[in-house]
């Protein structure tokens, strides 16, 4: 295991290398890399909270969509970077609110509520748009350049990885692991579990929201149905679980794998592809809950004990 400093350094170096891509890759390859980065960021930030604590959040789509709408609403008035930051903050604030209300409940309740959050936020925004803004969707008139979007998403994903690394090495990370292992025990040893959970949940929501805000500019037309796409939430969970939600490298590698798969298969066989993904998640949960990372760890253990 690398030290924290080395891991962060490695991440920054990789990000630096990737930042040159807009001038090296074709438009198609760049778009693909963008998708990889987005899912890496989403999966790593999801795993930061859910992997350690074993709480299941199905709210990624809600946060992503909220961020996207912050950009959509603020596109005229705010510079791109500010809108992205705001998207993240709004999502984080929302997560803090919801988290404070429901994180102290048992895990199943929490998961159920996050599951409905996407629907809830979508309905709320649809209502607002229709009643107050008098519109169904919005047109993005002056999107930023592809390179700008790329660099923003790259920055966010790199930041997500660095944050996940830092949290893992910190007291918060220890608290989260304790919560995942035995929450009541952790409480009796002095962990304010509610505060730790809300904090980590909000942090993870920030990245989902910011990424949503950043990616929204790629579409020229935004409406609630397309933005609050449950597929994004599903894909995030699947990627993190396949990679191994307790690791950081696992979800990153898995994100690349799935982005490639999605790109090449989804347009050809849209429904079949989703059916296969659903099937894959089921198989995974039943037979390999630790994801590929657990396979890797088992292989490594076997080698060292041979």
């Amino acid at each position, binding site marked *: 295991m690398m030290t924290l400093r080395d891991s962060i350094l490695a991440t920054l170096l990789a990000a630096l290398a990737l930042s040159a891509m807009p001038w090296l890759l074709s438009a198609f390859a760049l778009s693909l890399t963008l998708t990889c980065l987005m899912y890496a960021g989403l999966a790593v930030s999801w795993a930061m909270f859910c992997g350690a604590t074993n709480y299941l959040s199905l709210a990624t789509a809600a946060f992503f969509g909220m961020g996207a709408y912050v950009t959509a609403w603020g596109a005229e008035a705010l510079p791109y970077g500010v809108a992205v930051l705001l998207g993240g903050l709004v999502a984080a604030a929302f997560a803090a609110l919801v988290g404070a209300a429901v994180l102290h409940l048992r895990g199943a309740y929490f998961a159920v509520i996050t599951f409905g959050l996407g629907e809830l936020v979508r309905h709320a925004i649809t209502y607002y748009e229709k009643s107050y803004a008098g519109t169904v969707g919005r047109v993005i008139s002056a999107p930023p350049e592809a390179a700008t979007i790329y660099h923003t998403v790259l920055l966010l994903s790199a930041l997500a990885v660095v944050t996940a690394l830092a949290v893992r090495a910190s007291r918060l990370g220890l608290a989260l*692991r304790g919560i995942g*292992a035995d929450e009541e025990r952790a409480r009796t040893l002095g962990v304010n579990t509610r505060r730790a959970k809300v904090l980590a949940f909000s942090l993870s929501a920030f990245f989902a929201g910011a990424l949503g805000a950043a990616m929204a500019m790629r579409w020229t037309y935004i409406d609630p149905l397309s933005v609050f796409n449950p597929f994004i939430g599903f894909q995030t969970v699947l990627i993190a679980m396949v990679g191994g939600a307790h690791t950081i490298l696992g979800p990153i590698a898995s994100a690349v794998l799935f982005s490639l798969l999605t790109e090449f298969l989804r347009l050809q066989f849209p429904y079949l592809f989703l059916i296969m993904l659903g099937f894959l998640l089921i198989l995974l949960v039943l037979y390999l809950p630790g994801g590929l990372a657990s396979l890797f760890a088992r292989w490594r253990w076997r080698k060292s004990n041979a």
Partner: protein
Amino acid sequence: MREALLSARGVSVRFGGLVAVDEVDLDVHAGELVGVIGPNGAGKTTFFHTLSGVLSPTAGRILVAGEDLTGRAAHVYATHGIARTFQTPRVFKEMSALDNVRFGLEFAGRTRRHAHDAFDEPAAILEFLGLAEVAAVPAGGLTPSRQRLLEIGMALGARPRVLLLDEVAAGLTHAEVDLTAQLIRRVRDELGLAVIWIEHAVRVLMSYVERVAVLHQGRKIADGDPRAVARDPAVIEAYLGDEGEPERRAA
């Protein structure tokens, strides 16, 4: 009379119609080694839950060093110096023994100062418990008796003033029970903690503690010197209803 470190005043716990703990008073002072015994279902563990903030009493108050913590969350009790073990050892299975002990130091342990400075390091605690050699082993891989010791280590990591031990000797051989009891005695002697110890192994507890409280069907029926309590007719009757006289109960 010096102030009690931990004080239960009229604590009752009701689950629906069932009264698990019935208006129990208990005061524990610094350096005291108090045993709590009683037949099965007497409410001992439930009482412990209220003393550690895991459960809120339905009635009554819990004071820690004079401060009323009734109804507060468990982590507040921990940061005020109450640490406990559970009946079945609850260690963090995936973490190493060292990290298990380190956990308490990182959280509740941060806010407290220990009488014994050597306990600033998780390694020192493991040494004290005789677990130094398994420091790197994941806690889930330890034997049950070692996990019990580790649990005490986790509690010590929280740098408590009061240590609540729930049946730490259950399932151990005679020799192991004696060793555990000696360890508990050392914890009190060397670290100046107050220790409240629930045990079914009444024989051993009685010979190590200076004071024993007896719970029966949720009520406290005796509280005092072990020999006197063992001869108390109410206590004998409570145990006869269960299995036999306390001083003759095998561990």
